[in-house]
């Protein structure tokens, strides 16, 4: 039994596979994966990695679609394929696990109406599609509405306690409506992109010449993640924390045993299996007070860590939100819009 098989069978920790490459998905299922992260960037990557595999399906996409419709058709093709692989797990777990994700167009995610329309289209692709949305103010009505209809939601582009708690509260409102209407509530997966937060804090701390060790900054994302996890437990919020974008094995082992669902790239799965860490649960170990005190030297850490420090209208303007949305747009959505199509240059550079 390798470390991942131990983790998923002997502890409460679960993991999803973080790529849409077919052979990698099959290998991850062998190691205990119970879902799959798909998004525009990963969709484009699988098209580049195994173009011949996808081409017959690409050929069936109508030729007269707009750029945005073309991108959405490619997302649907890959997400429904990936969802098919997890159908059995979805049914066996009564809809608690076994999802693939449908992520919204990053350029419309400040428009609640457009987001809801796209989210409902995605949810119609398959029962085990979870709609993935950035954690910004305009997503709050979407999270509530989809949850009330018994649709699983995944909130991403999330770096702060404030964002996670606001999304969870919207989920609880939707969940209550679903129950009142006799609809079975579906899960909420709250992504924590701790590695990206660490990188952003390192950049801003260097820019401001703050006297702090880069090794201390590497604890920032985990500190936010553990705090959200504990708040969910304290407040009986049945949402699942999903750490993603891990930068090393330590991001996983330091939270081993948690009732979380990790999103793990093939590279991290391989590194973990090869490192074969000691099989010990570390989730109950607290980050030392001294580390948190050091991190408080960075103003952006305080905004990420303190509940309520970021107001809902600041979720969008938070620097790392903009950085991440821009990356999703330019390395995911725009390449999909242009995939096997002549670029129209409709977007401003």
């Amino acid at each position, binding site marked *: 039994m390798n470390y991942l098989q131990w983790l998923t069978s002997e502890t409460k920790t679960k993991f999803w596979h973080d790529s849409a490459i077919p052979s990698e998905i099959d290998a991850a299922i062998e190691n205990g994966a119970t879902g799959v992260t798909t998004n525009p960037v990963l969709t484009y990557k699988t098209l580049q990695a195994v173009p011949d595999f996808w081409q017959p399906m690409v050929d069936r996409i109508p030729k007269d679609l707009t750029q945005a419709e073309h991108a959405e058709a490619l997302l649907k093709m890959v997400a429904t394929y990936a969802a098919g692989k997890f159908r059995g797990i979805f049914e066996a777990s009564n809809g608690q696990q076994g999802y693939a994700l449908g992520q919204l167009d990053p350029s419309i995610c*400040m*428009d609640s109406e457009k987001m809801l329309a796209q989210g409902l289209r995605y949810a119609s692709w398959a029962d085990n599609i979870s709609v993935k949305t950035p954690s*910004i*103010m*305009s997503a709050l009505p979407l999270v509530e509405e989809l949850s009330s209809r018994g649709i699983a939601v995944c909130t991403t582009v999330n770096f702060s306690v404030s964002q996670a708690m606001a999304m969870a509260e919207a989920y609880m409102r939707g969940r209550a409506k679903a129950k009142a209407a006799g609809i079975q509530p579906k899960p909420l997966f709250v992504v924590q992109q701790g590695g990206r937060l660490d990188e952003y804090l390192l*950049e*801003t701390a*260097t*820019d*401001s*010449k703050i006297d702090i060790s880069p090794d201390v900054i590497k604890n920032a994302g985990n500190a936010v993640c553990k705090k959200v996890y504990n708040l969910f437990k304290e407040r009986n919020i049945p949402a699942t924390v999903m750490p993603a974008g891990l930068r090393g094995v330590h991001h996983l082992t330091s939270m081993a045993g948690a009732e979380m669902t990790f999103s793990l790239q093939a590279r991290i799965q391989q590194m973990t299996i090869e490192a074969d860490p000691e099989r010990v649960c570390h989730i109950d170990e607290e980050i030392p007070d001294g580390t948190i005190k050091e991190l408080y030297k960075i*103003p*952006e850490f305080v905004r990420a860590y303190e509940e309520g420090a970021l107001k809902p*209208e600041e979720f*969008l*303007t*938070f*620097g*790392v*939100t*903009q*950085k*991440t*949305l*821009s*990356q999703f*747009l*330019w*390395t995911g959505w*725009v390449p999909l819009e242009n995939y096997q199509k002549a670029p129209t240059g409709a977007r*401003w*550079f």
Partner: protein
Amino acid sequence: MVTNEYLKKLSESRGYWWTDTADYATMDQAIENGATGVTTNPILVMKSLYANPEFWRPYLGSAAGLTGDAKAEEILRCVTSEIAKKFRPIFEATEGAQGYVCAQVNPKKQGETEAMIEMGRRLAAWAPNIAVKIPATAAGIRAIEALASEGITTVGTVSFTASQVVSIAAAQQHGIERCRAAGRKPGAAFSVLMVGRLDDYLRDVAKDMRSDVPEADIICAGTAAIKNAYRACKRRGYEAKLMPAGMRGAYHATALAGSDMSFSLSAGILDALSREPRFVEHIDEDVPADAIARLRTIPEFVRAYEIGGLPEEEFIRFGASQRTLSQFVEAGWNRIVEFRL
């Protein structure tokens, strides 16, 4: 592009214009229409490479065998120095006041002063008429002053706010004065405000806030910020030329006509300006007070508009800065690294 009467008038006024592209084939026509410089960035170089790979490949032999950041930097050197030759006569005729081609430091290093200073020195050595472009973060502001003090021409970029424009110009002024005090000839100085990118960012923020500020006001935001910065720089006697960039329509240029700014104009804006019936000076007209009052209901506008609305340590965290630098890295720099030689 054919003869463009508006551009000719613009270059006969106190203003200057620079062509906002790395498309080599358009340079001669731009010079005929009065262009006195070129503003490139990682995205514009990427676009030019991928649009005309066969044209550029013969110039890029020295990048063969390089990988990663070193490869991107060498490609930038080859492209930029070739374009710089075209503008060398203007540089010499104006004794270094105009005739520059921009070269931008690695956008991944935006928080690292020393890395940007070292790279800036390398870029400046490519040709006498290279203007070194540095993002306006706190680290970048320190790098700008250091490079200006060495007599290097600097352009502060990735700038969306009046505070950034004024900080850039102040750092350049300190550097220029240190350079003169050391008995050396200083370079020129340019301070960018990406007017259209500020409008784009505020439009998204306003939508998310469910603000009712109309589109007609949103498209005045960048113009209002640069007019505010222009007056502040004049009052303080800074030598830097302001550089409005990232325009989305002719309105962004015409509102500033009559100023002594160096306008950075992309192909779409050049085309739009060719249809302007007359050249009319508007620089002394304010954006209407009622529009400013409505825009002020968006907190991000206040941060962008007020001098001092954004402290230096917040430059790097400003949403539009992170959005733009991420685009420069992902859609520009990294694709230059991937370019097949």
